């Protein structure tokens, strides 16, 4: 336990929010002499790595300095008046609920920046002569090949880095702010960057997908704004801490019900909750790798975080009214997501692997919502744990699928698996191993991060808060448990189809062979004559190791030592849940 003075903590938290913003502005300026690098793209991607690295470092120091003896209390709190006429204050602070999310966001963004930098480097020169040739043929600064780094297709790397940093600033601000309107502002701030990331750097159909993403979220969040204003005016304050600790007579039962309905819709779209989820698969399928990772890893968490941070403490009665419905929708989401995944994983279904993982996110976020709906400390802790776990595991899976797409040019399961299977174990054993690890972690194997959150959520549903129908929640639990089985089913099918099989046995594919020319260090063990698209795949690159290892380690760590996270969240949850500690 290192004690850091409060002023330093305040400065750190403010820095975590301001540095990405400043970095985004700086990314658009020309690089200063001495930092020009090999070309502007490389320089600005390096700038991105530096800035996100600094932010991550600040977030880690913040976490180290966090007083773990009192995680239920707001720390690093600063409270400055911003718009007195509307009563809006810049009120920042972290507690056990938001700190893990802040660190997760900083980590994932850093890894994304690192990954883009590495991918750009290996694509536009250096390690592979073939790649360098391909790059020079297309002009030195804009390698637009389909298999090159994510930052090089679609738009300028400067804009790419600026958008990523803007996205990071918005997400971090969402988790760190304690003012309702500021929360809304931060919540909205991520939309524009994400829209452009999907629309300009995305794959096929990215335009409509980006529109769908932004329209769904906007529709939800405008309604959410009305709900937030309702709470603010009826209670007389926008301050989350004040709202959570004091009883406000203005928040009558009706007001609470209305507010939960309005705010809940906004958050549910973001989470996403079935049946408001339909933007997610399209957005994920079309988004570039980095966009998918951030979308699944941190953006979705903003929705569930809002439930825990705002709705549970501020409108407990409203939540109690809607909890059974929330639980029902959550369970339908779990089962529906798994069933869609199962059908996508079938042979001949032309299932897209990215789409499949997107639907699996719907299922996983269903567990998070179920945990919240129980209104018990167990369930909410489980939800928060599942939140983090999903961020780590799904982030890793999207990284892997993105890398697979760069190697083979496709995410279509049928193309990938050929007749007998993709045989990644044979052609790229480390890559295949990582994919299998991600899948197994995602299905909730005990000992890995995915297990605890879902178990606690189901446990919470077995014994829901007083006043909730136990019969209903036990049914939800049973259905949720069925959902875990289905999840295991489709993920194992995916592993079998993509990782196993005979690399020698599949038909040739000229198109994918051409793409493979761009790859490097083709594994000599793989078959030379006819092969699947996954044959002769390059195994994991060093930059990919760098980006993925932290996720793997944290997944294992959180699985083996859940107290690390639960010790942080539990006291905070006790504070947020009404009638438990107060």
């Amino acid at each position, binding site marked *: 336990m290192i004690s850091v003075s409060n002023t330093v903590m305040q400065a750190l938290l403010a820095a975590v929010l301001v540095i990405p913003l400043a970095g985004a502005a700086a990314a658009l300026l020309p690089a200063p002499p001495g930092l020009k690098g090999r070309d502007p793209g490389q320089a600005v991607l390096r700038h991105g790595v530096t800035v996100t690295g600094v932010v991550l470092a600040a977030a880690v120091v913040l976490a180290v300095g966090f007083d773990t003896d009192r995680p239920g209390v707001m720390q690093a709190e600063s409270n400055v008046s*911003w*718009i*007195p*006429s*509307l009563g*809006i204050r810049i009120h920042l602070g972290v507690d056990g609920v938001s700190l893990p999310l802040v660190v997760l966001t900083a980590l994932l963004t850093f890894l994304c920046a690192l990954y883009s930098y590495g991918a750009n480097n290996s694509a536009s020169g250096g390690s592979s002569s073939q790649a360098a040739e391909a790059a020079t043929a297309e*002009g030195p*600064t*804009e390698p637009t090949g389909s298999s090159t780094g994510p930052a090089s297709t679609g738009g300028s790397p400067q804009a790419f880095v600026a958008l990523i940093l803007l996205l990071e600033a*918005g997400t971090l601000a969402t988790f760190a702010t304690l003012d309702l*309107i500021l929360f809304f*502002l931060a919540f*909205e*701030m991520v*939309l*524009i960057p994400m*829209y*452009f990331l999907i*629309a*300009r750097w995305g794959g096929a159909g990215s335009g409509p997908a980006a529109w769908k993403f*932004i*329209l769904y979220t*906007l*529709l939800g969040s*405008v*309604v959410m*704004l*009305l709900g937030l*204003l*309702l709470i*603010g*005016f009826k209670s007389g304050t926008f301050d989350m801490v004040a709202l959570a600790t004091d009883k406000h007579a203005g928040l009558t039962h009706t007001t609470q019900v209305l507010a939960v309905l309005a705010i809940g819709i906004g958050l549910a779209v973001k989470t996403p909750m079935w049946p408001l989820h339909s933007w997610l698969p399209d957005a994920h399928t079309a988004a570039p790798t980095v966009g998918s990772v951030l979308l699944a890893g941190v953006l979705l968490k903003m929705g569930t975080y809002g439930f825990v941070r705002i709705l549970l403490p501020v409108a407990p009665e409203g939540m109690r009214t809607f909890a059974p419905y929330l639980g029902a929708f959550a369970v339908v989401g779990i089962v529906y997501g798994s069933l869609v995944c199962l059908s996508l994983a079938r042979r001949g279904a032309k299932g897209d692997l990215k789409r499949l993982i997107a639907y699996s996110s719907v299922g996983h976020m269903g567990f998070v919502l179920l945990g919240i709906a129980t209104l018990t400390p167990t369930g909410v802790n489980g939800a928060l744990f599942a939140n983090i776990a999903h961020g780590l595991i799904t982030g890793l899976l999207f990284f892997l699928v993105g890398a697979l797409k760069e190697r083979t040019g496709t995410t279509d399961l049928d193309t990938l698996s050929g007749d007998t299977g993709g045989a990644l174990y044979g052609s790229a054993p480390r890559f295949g191993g990582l994919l299998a690890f991600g899948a197994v972690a995602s299905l909730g194997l005990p000992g890995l991060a995915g297990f605890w959150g879902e178990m606690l959520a189901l446990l919470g549903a077995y014994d829901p808060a007083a006043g909730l129908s136990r019969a209903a929640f036990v049914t939800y639990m049973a259905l949720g448990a069925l959902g875990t089985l289905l999840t295991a089913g489709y993920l194992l099918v995916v592993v079998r189809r993509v990782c196993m099989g005979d690399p020698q046995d599949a038909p040739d594919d000229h198109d994918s062979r051409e793409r493979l020319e761009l790859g490097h260090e083709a594994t000599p063990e793989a078959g030379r004559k006819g092969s699947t698209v996954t044959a002769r795949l390059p195994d994991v690159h060093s930059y990919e190791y760098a980006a993925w290892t932290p996720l793997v380690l944290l997944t294992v760590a959180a699985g083996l030592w859940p107290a690390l996270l639960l010790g942080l969240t539990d006291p905070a949850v006790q504070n947020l849940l009404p009638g438990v500690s107060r």
Partner: protein
Amino acid sequence: MTALTHAAQLFADEPAQSVQSVDWLAISPPTVAAVAGLAVLVAELFLPERGKRLLGPASAAALLLSALPLLFLRTRQLETFCLPGEAGACSYSADTLALVLQFLVLGAAFVTALISMPAVRDLELPPGEYWFLLLSATAGAVLVPASRDLVTLVIALEVASLPAFALVGLRRGSRRSAEAALKFFLSSVTATAVTLLGASFLYAVTGTLHFRGISEGLTRADPQLATLGTAGIVLTLVGFAFKAAVVPFHFWVPDTYVGAPVPVAAFLSVVGKTAGLSGLLLLLVQAFSSRAEIWGPALAVLAAVTMTAGNVAALRQRADRPHSAVRLLAWSSVGQAGYLLVPLAAAAPDAGAHPQQALSSAGATVAYLLMYAAVNLGAFAVVAHISRTSRANRLEDYRGLYAAQPLAALALGFFLLCLAGLPPGVIGLFAKVAIFSTAVQNGLGWLAVIMAANVVIALYYYLQWTALAFRKGETEVTTVSAAGSGGSGQLARPRIATPLSVTIALTAAVGIVLSVDPDLVLTFAAEGLR
């Protein structure tokens, strides 16, 4: 005896009191603008051709000069043209509300003058007339928020409108321009006639033209005259609704904006709308405050219909139609007028009993107007730039703007997102929050919900335009060398004219400053107006 002394006293006081005192400092903003307009018109006759180029900068400087007295008036709360003997019966008041709106009008006119400079040269508009008309219309619009009786208000509004007709039709040999001017003129004159009829009804009922007197008179009026009073209120409001382009008096807007030169459209969309809305605000909060039950619900419905009609029409603009950019801005300005009415409707419950409360609610309109003026003029400046190269000014012409002129594209994106109310346009968001809050606080939840739906519709088309500006151009050659040398393959986009780039920089700076410190304008939505 007493009667005699009374008469004698009257007689003795007469020279001092029967002539209204004039406070020249208080009325200097409109006066300076009007005098400058005349001076420009006369000067043009004597200036050589080369000297006429200076008329534009001179007019802009005159506008700044007429804004200067606002600094001194800020703390004084002056009133002038007062009726002798009666307290509070003044025709001209330089209170905070008037000063803020005058500042807005003069600032907007200054920016319009900047946008106009290249256009006057390009379209070969007659410079003397153009600047004279612009300054006169500005003088009228500056007078509107300060007037405190019906006659002054109507005259001020006419002074603001009459030059505007001429401005719209000023483009020589353009049939569209003449048609637009005629359409604008006919509907506007009808509206004015209706307003005058309403004003005469009100005079008949209350026996006074001063706002405060009307408000009191309406409560004390003979019950038999109640219908006449109501008719007077409705008819008077119609004229102002026309100026503010409130549905169903909005049909002139798109055609007039498209037919007019772009700077004139910008002027109408900001200054014209401010004149109409500030008149509406004064009438509702001051003159008709005692009969809020008549106009409150009606105004709420009008607000809902206006924003919906404007936004839906803007949504239906096809990107490849000629003039779609201006048309979209025109329809979106109708939608924005709908938002601007919401706080006025929300002020209705307080209008009678708590005038300060009502003024604070209406202050949200003022705050929103200030935001709207800055970013809408900024957007028009970019449109004016594009219209120099592509006459058709389709939305399609904005494709690839980012590649050609990144700063202009970023600015356009910022302006549009401010209008939409989405970060990074923080001020747009908070101005909308202020409006939402007046509605939610005053029991107009349904209106807030309709407005929310409208905000989403508006987001759609604003965002589509923004996205278009950042998309890659079709004709654009992607090789780097061409971009570096501004080469032959590149879509020919000239550099932005200096006045236009100054405008874009100025309005963007205002938008950014307001985004960092929204309280600068939002204070008017709290206790800032008196």
